[in-house]
């Protein structure tokens, strides 16, 4: 599979964590042998949301905050497609916060990669929903005063079917988590710690290295209470698969449209005779 775009101009800053995410995604896709024609990458707006531009794939680079509703519709209209959302913390947790909640509730079989650098890049350095209290910016001059959004605990509270956190400084481990997320049947969230070398001088490569640890093999991600504990930890932040719920039914599997007929919607035509019957029922 060839996911390479060739010689292109990439709009990311040198040293940006996005490069690592792009590499890890390509590696995962190729290991899973996902065909480019069957892959749709959906994104919103922001530096992270430019990722599909740099990947050979079908993509839907829509509006700021709205990739999840779009990804949902693409998946249900054609469940045979592999649908991956890749966007930033501002896009998914800020502008698109409501959709984040309801996408998890719906549980379509899609993967969500959130590039979480705890700052707004493209708009030049304002606080993001995940910025820590006290984080100083040109807008939050005295430092961020409001509670940071905790995507992991929110996702677990909504009984998301797969919740993981990665740090892109660890390429191999991240690719491993990505692979599990894509293979997971149901909605999979991977919150990816990623340094912003231009606007976040606090949460640097070193900071993430020093403030994270990997869950070991004894950890049981099926235990929701344990997962909550991990999600609430603040001293050191856990990396790995934090919560899995294999009992949740996949949205598109419940649709009556696909009960007896697995064909995607584009292959179907209207049964005019049935429609005429329905019209005549109104006599």
């Amino acid at each position, binding site marked *: 599979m060839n996911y390479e775009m060739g010689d292109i101009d990439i709009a990311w800053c040198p040293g940006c964590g996005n490069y690592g995410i792009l590499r890890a995604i390509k590696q995962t896709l190729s290991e899973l042998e996902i065909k480019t024609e069957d892959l749709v990458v959906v994104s919103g707006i922001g530096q992270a949301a430019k990722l599909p*531009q740099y990947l050979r794939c079908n993509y839907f680079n829509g509006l700021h905050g709205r990739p999840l*509703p779009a990804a949902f*519709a693409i998946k249900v*209209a054609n469940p045979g497609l592999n649908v991956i959302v890749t966007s930033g913390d501002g896009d998914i947790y800020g502008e698109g916060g409501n959709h984040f909640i309801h996408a998890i509730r719906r549980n379509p079989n899609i993967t969500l990669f959130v590039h979480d650098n705890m700052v707004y890049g493209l708009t030049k350095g304002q606080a993001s929903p995940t910025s820590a209290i006290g984080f100083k910016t040109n807008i939050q001059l005295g430092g961020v005063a409001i509670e940071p959004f905790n995507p992991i605990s929110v996702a677990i509270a909504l009984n998301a079917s797969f919740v993981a956190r990665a740090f892109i400084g660890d390429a191999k481990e991240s690719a491993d988590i990505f692979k599990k997320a894509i293979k997971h049947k149901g909605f999979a969230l991977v919150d990816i710690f990623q340094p912003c070398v231009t606007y976040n001088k606090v949460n640097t490569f070193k900071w993430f290295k020093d403030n994270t640890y990997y869950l070991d093999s004894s950890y049981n991600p099926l235990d929701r209470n344990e997962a909550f504990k991990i999600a609430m930890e603040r001293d050191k932040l856990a990396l790995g698969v934090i919560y899995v719920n294999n009992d949740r039914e996949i949205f598109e599997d419940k649709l009556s449209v696909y009960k007896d007929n697995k064909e995607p919607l584009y292959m179907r035509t209207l049964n005019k005779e049935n429609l005429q019957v329905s019209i005549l029922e109104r*006599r």
Partner: protein
Amino acid sequence: MDADVPNNNDISIVLCGEAGQGIQTIEQIFTKLLKASGYNVFATKEYMSRIRGGSNSTSIRVSSRRVASYVQRVDILIPLDKDAIPHMKTRISQDTVIIGEKEKVVTSYNILDIPFSQMATEVGGPIFSNTVAAGTLSGLLSVNLDKAIEQIKQHFKTKSEDIINKNIEALKKGYEIGSQLLESGKVKIPKLDRVENSEDIVIEGATAVALGAIAGGCNFMSAYPMTPGTSVLTLLAGYADKFNIIVEQAEDEIAAINMAIAAWYAGARGMVTTAGGGFALMVEGLSLAGMIEMPVVLHVGQRPAPATGLPTRTEQGDLKFIINAGHGEFPKIVFAPGTLEDGFYLAQKAFNLADKYQIPVFILTDQYYVDSYYTIPTINALSVNNENFVVKTSENYKRYKFTATGISPRGIPGYGNGLVDVDSDEHDEEGHITEDLDLRIRMVDKRLKKIELIKEDIIPPELIGNEDYQVLVIGWGSTCNVIKESLERLGRPDISFLYFKQVFPLYPDLHKFLEKAKKTVIIENNATSQFGQLVREITGIEIQHKILKYNGLPFSVEEVIENLQGI
């Protein structure tokens, strides 16, 4: 007291009561029954934005002629609570026959006292009062009792046998009273001629739009409930299994429009339904459809605004908003059906034009249109044609390939070897972000070039009346039938009516119609004559007389006649 209903082959009946009293139930049973008895029917409702209490009414016209519009006149009024008569006082005349429970209805009007509640209690409880009332009306109009019982069985088919039997009992009691009133001469009702209408259907505006959408291949609906858009959502949900439609109640209108657009991207035919306020939230999404050249169909049912306005009432106040909606410049089409047939055919057409030109297409209605129903000849779904514009992609497919017409063949992901890339940023032919400003110009030109082709598909306005008119009345959308009937009744051959069912882009030769008229009149359910402004913008001609109504209610035939008489 004796009461006469004037004989004009047309009887207007109004039921009025609180929300939750089951007026809708009577309306549904009774209108179906009237139709089954060989009459033409028209029904519309006006209601308050609440679940219980308040004053709501439903107006039913029964006639030998086809009836399709709201009249002010009330021949028979059935008040079901004490507030009903005060609520109806502007419509009650000395000819109105009021039938109800004297005890419940405090009034100085003469009233034929029928103990609906007591009769209902004898059957099993006051809850059956509605069915007693439906029975009384059935008796008064001397419909076939067996047919009436059949309707009861149909209507309550999901209920227990006990409930069905009690309703039949209630119906019979009411029917007996109705027949007695008629036979004793206490109420004189003209005998209406029956018509052969077994092939007719009775649907409301919402159903016309929903069935038309299905006819247009709609297989994806995402919406957030908002009156009066919700009815189309409810109807499609009901049809979802039968016609393989994915119906999703979105978390908000923003999600709804993004879902519908992305569904088209993946090969579905998606639609949203909402009201003006919900559409306001969709506007960024509309602009997305414009940029990525994605088809999408939007049903917007108007209601009085700004903001929440009068949630359950009617208005034509969102025309200019819709036409101008979306940041940036991109083409769109706006249909405004005025008849049920137009609702069906325009909804069907909306999907095909959206697909053909890769643009948003609107079906703009309002509460009055959505909630009014009447008998029409059966619609033939077998004759509709849907064109499929989706292409199978090859390896070097370019989603935004420059072509002579501006329309690039539309591929979808997973169908062919090509890649389908769409971007809300300005993009190149492949759909990749660009900041090449020369390319920007070419892309803008490409998108706008489609307008020339779209013009070829413009539905011209319909001229109703003589070609050599002196006075030209202009209307659009839901006022169509009311204006039509008003002119028929006025009997002035010098007045003709120009009915617009496509309001954007406007018919380019419109000025020819206007220039022929000595006097021009516009009738609109809004305060600023939005369509009149649009006409002036296109033709430079200011329409002389404006008949505008914006109290939240539709025009009545009488009102239009009265206003036109002065012109």
